[in-house]
């Protein structure tokens, strides 16, 4: 260190910083960031330690603003500017023509509140609601949703599970409200399941914002990217990341299938029991055994046979109960 090191400073620090930020944003913006893009970035990073350090520095600074988005108390969006109002009106007209097609068994209209129509599925049911704005809602077993009768895209998931494929509209957000918080679409496909006061939101494609239930007048909101899974109750919100494969397995129900990879017998039985009047009861001594396989949601008997053959267990049927024991 006593000898001054040689430094060929080809570019000023500010210019390198600006370039690093450009790379960072390009990478974040580009949904199909390719191998070639990455190679170009790597080449730039390897060109000089100045580049690498500037990139690390920019990345960590930008990351800190991400924390802000997750932790920041929800603030109401700015009021729309007058210029947007006519557009909003036009969209309201489109939304007013929301038509529901291809629904075989609408069970009940909700008479309590005139503004909403209720759609539901029975145990083992599965149906798709096609909305007039191009969005689709696919209901899984034992599910209840309420849709606004006229204007608006504010859906309420009362219970169960649904896959939402939303036609995004900036000025008229699609919002799904649950017992514990709500999801605001930002151009998206997502699944919401509501069960025993716990809401689970899995983001499949695009972006959405989850807003937790308000606590002391303050809301917590998190922006979700593909693979993000939120578990929320009335007073807690947790966020985790799941691989795409796992999410797609969890959505097997959309094709009438249950796909188990590393599931315990107890978890698999819980899944089956969501779809069928026959209930599988797993003895606690074998509940932890792991199972793999793909089953039709209604095929309880195949599942029972498989536990006999593959795991050497005993099954016995009594009325609607199928017991699995050692």
């Amino acid at each position: 260190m006593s000898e001054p090191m040689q430094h060929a400073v080809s570019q000023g620090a500010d210019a390198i910083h600006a370039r690093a930020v450009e790379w960072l944003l390009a990478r974040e913006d580009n949904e199909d960031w390719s191998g070639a893009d990455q190679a170009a970035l790597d080449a730039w990073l390897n060109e000089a330690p100045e580049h690498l350090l500037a990139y690390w520095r920019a990345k960590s600074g930008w990351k800190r603003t991400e924390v802000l988005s997750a932790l920041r108390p929800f603030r109401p969006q700015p009021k729309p500017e007058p210029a947007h109002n006519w557009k909003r009106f036009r969209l309201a007209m489109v939304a007013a023509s929301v038509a529901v097609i291809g629904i075989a068994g609408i069970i009940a209209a909700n008479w309590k509140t005139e503004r909403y129509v209720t759609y539901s599925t029975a145990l083992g049911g599965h149906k798709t609601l096609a909305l007039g704005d191009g969005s689709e809602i696919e209901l899984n077993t034992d599910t209840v949703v309420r849709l606004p009768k006229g204007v608006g895209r504010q859906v309420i998931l009362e219970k169960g599970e649904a896959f939402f494929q939303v036609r995004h509209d900036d000025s008229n957000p699609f919002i799904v409200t649950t017992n514990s918080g709500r999801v605001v679409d930002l151009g998206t496909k997502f699944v919401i399941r509501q069960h025993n006061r716990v809401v689970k939101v899995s983001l499949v494609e695009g972006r959405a914002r989850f807003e937790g239930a308000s606590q002391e007048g303050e809301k917590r909101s998190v922006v979700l990217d593909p693979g993000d899974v939120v578990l929320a109750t009335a007073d807690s919100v947790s966020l985790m990341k799941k691989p795409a494969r796992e999410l797609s397995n969890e959505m097997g129900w959309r094709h009438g299938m249950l796909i188990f990879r590393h599931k315990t017998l107890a978890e698999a039985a819980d899944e089956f029991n969501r779809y069928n009047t026959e209930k599988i009861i797993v003895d606690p001594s074998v509940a932890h055994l792991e199972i793999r396989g793909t089953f039709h949601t209604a095929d309880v008997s195949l599942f029972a046979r498989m536990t006999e053959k593959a795991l050497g267990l005993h099954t016995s049927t009594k009325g609607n109960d199928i017991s699995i024991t050692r």
Partner: protein
Amino acid sequence: MVETPETTRELNELHARSAGVSAHDLEAWFVSEVLPLEPALMQFLQHSWRRPADLADLRQDIYVRLYEVAKTKPPHPVKPLLFTIARNLLIDRFRRERIIPIEGVADLAEIEVASDAPTPDRSVIARDEVRRLEAALEKLPPRCREAVMLRRVEGLNRAEIALRMGISKETVGAHLRDGARLLIDLLHDRDTP
């Protein structure tokens, strides 16, 4: 030379070892141990060097020198080494520019004490983070701030921001770049609100 003998020895020892450090570990080390010292470093440079326009370049050169050492083995703690490197670099510059650094030397002595001031506790850092981010955001030009907020808080992409702000995607890109550039500098340089 203002260099302290202990640090020189430490440096030589470091040079002697040659364990390879992965880029991933280096990045983690740089982010968690070096960047938090940046406000103190910048304060030191400001006191010692009279042309504010040179500060970012000086910082860059100091980081590169530190990085060359860290490639062999990331030093712990970083602070003494970082400030030794900073002092040496300034002395090189003084010589090169034939400045008799009377003011500079005085400041160097002063800062040596300041550089030993304890860094804030991590919990304090976490508690202040949102306030600090908000303060930094306040300093951005309004349109840049709006674009950055739409991106970071609402998670909109460039096209969506363009629609919301009623401007072209290219202009959104420019606002985002300028906003992010400033914000990142503000967050690193001025850690004390």
